[in-house]
């Protein structure tokens, strides 16, 4: 890639970063506002986590460049996702494991 092409690419990326920045701020305001409206604990929880996941996706995808990363990184993260989900599922499994009183 030529030097000027590279510069152009980076400048385009900078615009993306600023858009993501705006989206993250909006997400923060939304998540606070949503938490103040009582739609039942389960829904509040779901909405809060969906917004958090979206924000997390934006940070990981754009700031951490995961949208365009090499396969090796994806391979590492596949393991992480697997074990992370496993750990979270354990909490679900534990939920039904109630000791008899």
């Amino acid at each position, binding site marked *: 890639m030529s030097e000027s092409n590279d510069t152009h690419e980076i400048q385009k990326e900078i615009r993306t970063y600023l858009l993501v920045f705006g989206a993250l701020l909006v997400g923060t305001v939304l*998540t606070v506002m949503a938490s103040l409206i009582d739609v039942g604990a389960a829904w509040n929880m779901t909405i809060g986590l969906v917004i958090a996941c979206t924000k997390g996706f934006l940070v990981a995808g754009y700031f951490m460049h995961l949208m365009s990363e090499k396969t090796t990184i994806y391979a590492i993260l596949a393991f992480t996702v697997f074990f992370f989900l496993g750990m979270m599922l354990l909490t679900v499994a534990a939920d039904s494991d109630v000791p008899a009183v």
Partner: protein
Amino acid sequence: MEIPHTVKPRPDTGLYNSKIGIWLFLASEVMLFGALFSTYILLRVGAPEGTWPKPGTMLNIPIGTINTCVLIMSSVTVVLAWASLKLNQFKRFKLFQAGTILLALTFLVIKSFEYNDKFTHYEVIKKDGTVINGHLVSQDSKHVVLEGAILPVKGEHKLGDHPNQQPAHQHDHEHDHEGGGDKAGQNAQGGESTHGETGQQAHGSESGHAESGGGHHQEFEIARSEIKDMDNYGPWFNTYLAIYFTLTGLHALHVFGGAVVIGYLWGPGSKMWHTEPERFTNRIEISGLFWHFVDLVWIFLFPVLYLL
């Protein structure tokens, strides 16, 4: 001997080595925080009905929101600093990274104010059963002075119980009901004098103003001989505060560590730019990846601890 693949990608992975390194490290970090998040879930699901604090009763939501924005902004300055190096603009890099360091310090200062607010927040159970909850004004060997309100409790009360109990006369709000059916009328034990005035300040969820209340708090001078039990809102106070301090404390350590590394690469470490610019740019990318991860963790901590 030269360290291999600090700039040139390794043929088999297609990446310079430190990038693999940081991602392996971040993978282990995901598991570390993941374990604590699942701990949080188990503690919360397992907490007896009505004992988990309602949003806004423990922490100040506006302060948490500001801190979230501070951290997001710092993530942007980090990525812009890296982009500046890619564009060969070293001065702009310096400027953006200085911003990052200042934002990191701002985050830590705000966090320490929040911590301080917890450590000076006391609950006192008097021998006559009255429970007074408020911030420490002063104390000596004979007296403890708290600025706060009397909690309307019924029956046996232990420190850390019923975090959702509102001070007397909190006007009705749908959030306040659970476990609070014993509101009005329970204050008799609190004594007439305090009855009317403790109403407005409420550690209420509607204002989101959990601490450092709005001027209506009343001062209570309590003789030590009347006190049955007292403790502050440290991690020992209840389950919520235990996991709150664990999660945010570990996160704050990460913020501190990240700021040290970014500070080094901003100061003495930045000399490398003049000798090995590409390698230096990669270092900034790596420290940036760590920083974004720290931001990412906070993006989940904020709703989980402050809002939900």
